[in-house]
């Protein structure tokens, strides 16, 4: 849609291996300003790992990730903090600090990174909470609100510094259909109105097709299909069709054996695994 806009994210030949298993295998794509990229794929296909590489909290085995034109893979902690001020991130669980109230959570980035007065901060917190439909929840603690509310507070916190780029890890899972629509609407308004760029990891196909301007489907650590929502919807690839229509039968296997699972997902070697193996009659 915005193919000629400024490139915000550039991922080039990204490879991440754990041991000899490639969790991400040669992934390349670009995201332009104002785009909403939806990354989808089955559980354990590397979506979250990909996201963690994009926010610079994991280092790839090889390949490059550029945010705002700057290479983040080789950056020091200090340099990466500067880039992180320009984007917000919504975690799957919300990741609110349990020791702070809802309002203090949203205010945290403002208190740490701006010189705004307490009154201004209170005003911004109110406004951000209103955006996610949580007016008047400032003084509650995270353990007093539901999972879906936590996620919306997480979104308000991610938006506190008015980021140019928003990463969301399953923003709508656990929300009711109305709240899903509200969050989608919010994402759309921000990308259309303020030219924010969004990268959303989602299982929710209704929501994905509502907000996406580009989509990527991951499988076994590589890109199965990518394109506009229409291209994905009309994709001849049977894996894509099975996934977006949520069919139990198709090329994506229903039950992975343990070996296959270990092949797709890194399993941390346990200490003395060789000894355990012997007791279980396995050789190594």
């Amino acid at each position, binding site marked *: 849609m915005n193919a000629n806009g400024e490139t915000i994210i550039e991922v080039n030949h990204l490879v991440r291996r754990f041991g000899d298993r490639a969790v991400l295998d040669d992934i390349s794509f670009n995201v332009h300003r104002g785009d909403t990229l939806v990354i989808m794929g089955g559980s354990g296909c590397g979506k979250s790992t990909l996201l963690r590489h994009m926010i610079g909290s994991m280092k790839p085995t090889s390949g490059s990730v550029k945010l705002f034109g700057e290479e983040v893979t080789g950056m020091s*902690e200090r340099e990466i903090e500067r880039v*992180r001020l320009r984007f917000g991130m919504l*975690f799957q669980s919300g990741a609110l600090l349990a020791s702070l109230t809802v309002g203090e959570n949203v205010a945290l980035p403002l208190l*740490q990174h701006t010189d705004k007065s307490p009154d201004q901060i209170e005003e911004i917190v109110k406004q951000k909470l209103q955006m996610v439909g949580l007016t008047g929840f400032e003084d509650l603690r995270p353990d007093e609100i539901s999972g879906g509310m936590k996620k919306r507070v997480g979104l308000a916190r991610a938006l506190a510094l008015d980021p140019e780029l928003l990463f969301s890890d399953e923003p709508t899972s656990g929300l009711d259909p109305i709240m899903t629509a509200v969050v989608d609407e919010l994402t759309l308004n921000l990308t259309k109105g303020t030219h924010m760029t969004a990268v959303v990891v989602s299982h929710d196909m209704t929501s994905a097709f509502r907000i996406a301007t580009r989509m990527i489907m991951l499988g076994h650590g590589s890109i199965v299909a990518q394109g506009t929502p229409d291209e994905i919807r009309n994709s001849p690839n049977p894996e894509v069709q099975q996934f977006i229509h949520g069919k139990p039968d198709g090329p994506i296997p229903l039950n992975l054996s343990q070996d296959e699972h270990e092949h797709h997902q890194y399993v941390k070697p346990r200490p003395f695994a060789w000894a355990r193996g012997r007791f279980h009659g396995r050789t190594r």
Partner: protein
Amino acid sequence: MKNYLLLNLSILYWIFIAPFKGQFFKIAPIFRQMVFIGVRAAPMVALTAFSVGVTLAMQAAHSLESLGAQIYIPDLVMLTLLREMGPVLIAVIVIGRSGSAVAAELGTMKVSEEIEALEVMAINPVQYLVVPRVFAMLVMLPALTIFGNYIGILGGWAVCRYALDFNTAGYVLRALESAETWDLYSGMIKSVVFAWLIITIACNAGLNVEGGAEGVGQSTTASVVESLLAMLVMNAILTGIFFFSA
């Protein structure tokens, strides 16, 4: 071990270098942690110290009686408390109560992605979470030790006053006469060193938790055991340096 050393370097950076680069640490969280780590541990410290004072006096009474030297009971209570029992036992209480709590709290934050969320918000977890706890511990453990010493000496007094034929003035004078300021200072130095060990080991355990609730439990236990061992070994080393070398 590598993580532990890196954490120590990072704490030193945030305490000694970052303030001169305009990133001064905030005062309010330090006080909050002081209440949590120190003030709330005071009742337990008082009970422990009182029991230890009473026990020391009773044992001393028993042993010194045969020598006819019961007059030295206050000396023994005072010196043992100031030099060894005060710093060590109060550190044990603080490890069990506050060290484990810090490890469990940071561990829970780690497994619920809170630490990662801080990093993504460009907030350094060492600066935001660890440094206030380090300051709180460095202030509160010596403070609790002084408090515990008082209570312990009170315990010794209770035995001498009510079970033996001491009068209060005699006990106080004898106790004050026996101790030198160095006895107090050596205990204070020990307790500052213990404070650093306890809080860094607890924070390191918490920040390196892996794998859910079970991981938090394991790390917390490990932090308590490691703190105890490190503290006792360090105590032997410091006693050697302070009282045995010259």
